[in-house]
């Protein structure tokens, strides 16, 4: 794609989410970013990842600086590759075939900016055929700089019959930065392969966040995602899309906890391209403060027989939050069976009374109900990852209000 097209695309707003003037942000210089262990610990504990992340993470990037020494050798031994995308593109020719394939650089201003100014930073992960990496791989992307644009490009390739459990924590310290995070993610799940992808976000009230994710799942492959965002932001917009081949499966779980004056526009889309494919979208949206949440979900049936189901639930705490739930199902195949259910409400007094009668105080009752509401059990995630999610949800629930 020529530079001129890309420069033009820099003015192209996304069809979703509030438009943002990119000139507010500075682009970074490669190698920039200081590593302060205390700072990193602060962010990682917000993400439920605990302390000592510097020793645990397989890929850690703070601002522009990749702390590559933390990449695990164990993985390399098994033939897996974990590299900054820029290095992977330089060292391995074949990586080019996976780069900017699923996400077109001129999609909108955020993708264009990343292509133009991102220096191809971000992580590249490759798992060779038949290799099953059960232990979760942690990649962490932090920002500590003010008015800065972190523009990332991540590529994950899980080759045929392989397995990867990826956990990404993205966050900032709990303080004003006024920065932008864009993450372009292109994930390839091979034939009969499995990728689980857990993403936890903790931002600050003045952050702008625009992830762009597209996933392609080959024949008989499986993709499971679990997304948790619970902090205030200025605005966050994302609409990951997953294409399923024959017999492929996907479950997309998302938990959005809105707070402050934040705007969240969070979608999930599945395209059933192959026969016998099956997709499920589960979303829980909790509106607090004066937050505004758009919960989008879409399943397209292009081949059959196939199945798709959307479950989108919203819970409003307080009087000022707004949730808009927009489930869509669309089919061009008579044998695609697509269903959806959506509901929005407040915490039912009946449930509170019940818990009161068993000795819970009103506050404890609300916390327990919120915790239950947010609890999407995903048995396909590794136990350690479920623990991380559980801790995060407990933290969120403990902040339940009237």
């Amino acid at each position: 794609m020529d530079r001129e097209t890309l420069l033009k695309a820099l003015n192209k707003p996304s069809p979703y989410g509030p438009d943002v003037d990119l000139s507010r942000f500075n682009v970074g210089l490669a190698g920039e970013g200081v590593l302060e262990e205390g700072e990193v610990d602060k962010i990682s504990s917000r993400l439920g990842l605990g302390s000592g992340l510097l020793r645990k993470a397989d890929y850690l990037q703070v601002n522009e600086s990749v702390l590559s020494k933390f990449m695990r050798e164990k993985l390399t031994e098994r033939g897996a590759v974990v590299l900054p995308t820029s290095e992977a593109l330089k060292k391995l020719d074949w990586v080019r075939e996976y780069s900017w394939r699923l996400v077109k650089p001129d999609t909108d201003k955020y993708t264009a900016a990343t292509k133009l100014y991102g220096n191809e930073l971000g992580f590249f992960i490759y798992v060779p055929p038949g290799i099953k990496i059960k232990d979760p791989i942690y990649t962490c992307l932090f920002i500590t700089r003010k008015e800065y644009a972190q523009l990332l490009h991540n590529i994950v390739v899980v080759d045929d019959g392989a397995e990867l459990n990826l956990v990404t924590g993205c966050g900032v310290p709990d303080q004003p930065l006024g920065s932008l995070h864009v993450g372009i993610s292109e994930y390839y799940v091979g034939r009969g392969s499995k990728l689980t992808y857990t993403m936890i976000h903790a931002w600050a009230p003045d952050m702008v966040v625009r992830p762009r994710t597209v996933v392609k799942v080959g024949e008989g492959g499986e993709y499971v995602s679990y997304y948790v965002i619970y902090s205030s932001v200025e605005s966050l917009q994302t609409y990951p899309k997953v294409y399923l081949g024959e017999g492929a499966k996907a479950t997309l779980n998302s938990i959005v906890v809105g707070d402050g004056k934040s705007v969240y526009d969070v979608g999930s889309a599945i395209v059933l391209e192959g026969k016998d494919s099956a997709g499920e979208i589960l979303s829980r949206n909790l509106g607090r403060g004066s937050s505004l949440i758009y919960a989008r979900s879409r399943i397209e049936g292009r081949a059959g027989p196939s199945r798709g189901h959307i479950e989108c639930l919203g819970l409003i705490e307080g009087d000022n939050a707004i949730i808009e739930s927009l489930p869509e199902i669309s089919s061009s195949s008579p044998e695609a069976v697509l269903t959806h259910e959506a509901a929005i409400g407040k915490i039912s007094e009946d449930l509170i009374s019940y818990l009161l009668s068993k000795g819970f105080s009103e506050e404890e009752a609300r916390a327990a109900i919120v915790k239950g509401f947010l609890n999407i059990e995903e048995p396909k995630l590794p136990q350690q990852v479920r623990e991380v999610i559980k801790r995060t949800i407990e933290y969120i629930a403990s902040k339940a209000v009237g």
Partner: protein
Amino acid sequence: MLELREVDVAVGKRKILSNINMVVKPRELHVVLGPNGSGKTSLLNAVMGIKPYEVIKGSIIFEGSDITQEPPHVKARKGVVVAYQIPPPIKGLVAGRFAEELMRRFNVESSYAEVLSEVLEVRDLLSKYLFDKMSGGEKKRLETFLTLLTKPKVALLDEPDSGVDVESLNRMSEALKVALSKGTSMVLVTHSLHMLRLLRDHITSVHVLYGGTVVHSGLYDEVVPSIERYGFSGALTQLARMG
């Protein structure tokens, strides 16, 4: 231990019950009978303090102090716990984890939980979400289990029998006996003659609720045989007339 003194109960502006008196002592089992709509649920819930049921007159004394206006969770922590007639489903809250939480809060030893769960056969229900996707009988067994699990000093049981098969009625009665033997007193609302017979030796007193008040309080042998003879509604009308 638990005493109702001249209690009136209302729902909103509507008075449902007047002048209810009852004294429940340690290890006693009190049975409340009454036709549908006579105010049995209102009575138990008002004692517990659950909205919209309200004690508008009289007082509830528990272990010597007036708890009439205490919020339900304070009463529960003191040892007065109601088992709902129809407990609400709470999605996402795993029954087993909730049970563990109750055990922790009420400091209950696991051997007691084991016995109760055995008798009430709730093991399979504990992996489900609370009262979600359960039959009527399953909900009853689970709710009775959870209530007794708190080792209350007084359990207020609202029709643990309805919708329950005979085998489960036997288990339910067995569970109540276990709790009685551990020192729990009970106020039991029931429509089951079968359950009354099973619990006969433990029943202290039977109270008949009719037309918004207790029209008769007496021993098992004064009340139950007439139910056996005239059927539930016939006997209750007759007892109501007798006063």
